[in-house]
């Protein structure tokens, strides 16, 4: 059994509890670096998609997992990031890197505005309010034809930094991975810093954290802004990768997909975002394999893949609500306590449903 003793405050805010984890990170980075040498172009494109999804996952893990706010409208921030980056580069002629950060900033502004309802709204009310905001933003993008091209869409120039154009698959892969690593480091640091712990307190009980001197207004609005910033960066990267964007790329279904991502990955930690991102980009392949095994008359039916996604999601929610990350923790726990593992360790407590008292 490995128990890490925590003796002082600094032990609690360490990046990793055991130093060996740094080696794992280094190994992972080396693996990421060498993937383009042995993976095919198609596999690389999947990994790049996983990178976008990971950034979105981080954004939602900060918002939902850490601060406990629910957003059903993250596709809107993603869309704002994508469109504003495209407009900055092609209409204002800004360099890509600046445009990407600025588009994150624009998305952040929108996020701050959306954050204002979160001050008074909770749970479902907030979810529906963010959904309403997303519909409004989608409508604005569709109607503002002079700027966004309306339903015809916009074509996006490829990304370039200082004359170096990221036009091939491996080049773009490296660009995305660098940004993924930077955003992950940021998210991890946010989680363990005072700011992150204030957010966690807010998630557990708003009133109690207020009593402890946490400025609820500031934290709630700022986490919306930060989360939207992440989503905007991901959107900008996606736009320059896809080369062409229309409002149909950013529908309500996409917002739901993002939520599925964090549920399947696991809400609690940064690793969950990575696992969820990998899941989201690899699952269409898995479903393709399953569909090929089915009898022939089911082939080529539209909507079959969506049914599979939904079934997988239902299975996760019912049997493994903590996602892949939770599964990993359980496996680790099992081996740590190997002969002593008891069957009911992770059994859910039976709860009565209504928790509020009127």
């Amino acid at each position, binding site marked *: 059994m490995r128990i890490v003793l925590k003796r002082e405050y600094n032990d609690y805010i360490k990046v990793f509890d055991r130093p060996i984890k740094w080696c794992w990170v280094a190994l992972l980075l080396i693996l990421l670096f060498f993937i383009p040498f042995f993976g095919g172009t198609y596999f690389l494109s999947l990994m790049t998609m996983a990178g976008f999804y990971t950034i979105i996952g981080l954004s939602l893990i900060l918002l*939902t997992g850490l601060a406990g706010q*629910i957003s*059903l409208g993250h596709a809107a921030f993603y869309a704002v990031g994508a469109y504003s980056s495209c407009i900055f580069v092609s209409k204002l002629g800004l360099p890509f890197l600046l445009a990407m950060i600025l588009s994150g900033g624009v998305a952040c502004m929108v996020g701050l505005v959306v954050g*204002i*309802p979160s001050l*008074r*709204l*909770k*749970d*479902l*009310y907030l*979810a*529906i*309010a963010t*959904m*309403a*905001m997303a*519909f*409004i933003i989608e*409508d*604005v993008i569709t*109607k503002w034809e002079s700027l966004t091209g309306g339903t015809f869409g916009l074509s996006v120039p490829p990304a370039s930094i200082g004359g170096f154009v990221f036009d091939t698959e491996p080049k773009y892969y490296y660009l995305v991975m660098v940004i993924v690593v930077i955003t992950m480091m940021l998210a991890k640091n946010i989680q363990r810093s005072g700011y992150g712990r204030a957010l966690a307190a807010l998630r557990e*009980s708003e*009133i*109690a954290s207020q*009593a402890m001197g946490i400025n609820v207004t500031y934290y709630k609005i700022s986490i919306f802004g930060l989360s939207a910033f992440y989503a905007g960066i991901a959107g900008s990267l996606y736009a320059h990768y896809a080369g062409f964007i229309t409002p149909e790329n950013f529908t*309500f279904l996409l917002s*739901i997909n993002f*939520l*599925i991502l964090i*549920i399947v990955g696991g*809400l609690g930690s940064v690793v969950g975002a990575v696992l969820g991102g990998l899941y989201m980009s690899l699952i269409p392949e898995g479903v393709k394999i399953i569909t090929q095994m089915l009898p022939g008359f089911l082939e080529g*039916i*539209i*909507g*079959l893949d*969506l*049914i599979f*996604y*939904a*079934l997988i*999601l*239902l299975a996760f*929610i*019912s049997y493994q*609500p903590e996602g892949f990350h939770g599964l990993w923790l359980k496996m680790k726990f099992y081996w740590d306590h190997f002969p002593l593992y008891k069957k009911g360790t992770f059994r*859910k*407590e*039976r*709860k*009565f*449903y*209504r928790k*509020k*008292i*009127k």
Partner: protein
Amino acid sequence: MVVQLLEQIGAGIGLGSVYALVALGFVLIYKATEVVNFATGALMMLGPFLFYSLVVFFHFPIWLGIAVSIVCMAMLGAGIDRFILRGLLGEPMLSIVLATLAVGIIIDCVAGIIWGFEPVAAPELIPNQAVRLVGITLSSAHTLTIVVLTLLIIMLFIFFRHTKIGIAMQATAQNQFSAYMMGINVGGVFSLSWAISAVICCIAGIVLIPISSLHVHMTHIGLMAFPAAILGGLSSIPGAVVGGLIIGLTENLASYYFPLIKDSLPFIVLILVLMIKPEGIFGIHERKKV
């Protein structure tokens, strides 16, 4: 000018009645089980498709078609509760939202595979003609929705006030634990409220056929029920009706007077109302103990 406005208001109330019905279905489930049912729109779409198949392919008379599809939907609703959501009691809200969304996606796709994603020609429910009421003209379809909404509200009122099961449902909504102690079959109440909700959605979908054409994307119309339910206050049945009417009215008036923002105006109204009254118009401000 005034007549035109009144006619638009009438049509808006007609459309709003459908939203109100779907929102009613949504609120009933929320009140009883605290499950946020994002599959409401899909249930609303499935009912009329069953009705369509029964009438067109199996040559049922219209009244029998409606009755059989209502029974099927009630069973489906209870089944969803029993086999999918009962196991999720006490999970965080996000999980439940996603579970119901998944159910909705499955229903959508299965319906799309069976009936195709194109609009189909539905049987005529009522002859299409204008109804004249105190100087203004309404289409028969809108009149039908208003009449059906009124009838259903009266029936629900009687059901909740004067039947034993209705009172048991109210008790469960108040406090599940006490209701359980008093010998109420809480699980049965859950299934029953799902069944009633599915039936209401089915009726809403059927009366919607003359207004909108019958196609799988009707689910998106059901999506408007969430703003309606939230607007009125989630745990209030009169709130759902009022919210639905407001959303329908704004949508209809906006498409007539401000066509540019017709799609987003209901949502803008929703956000404005929530800014002023975060728990909705009829919602109760819930205090939380720390």
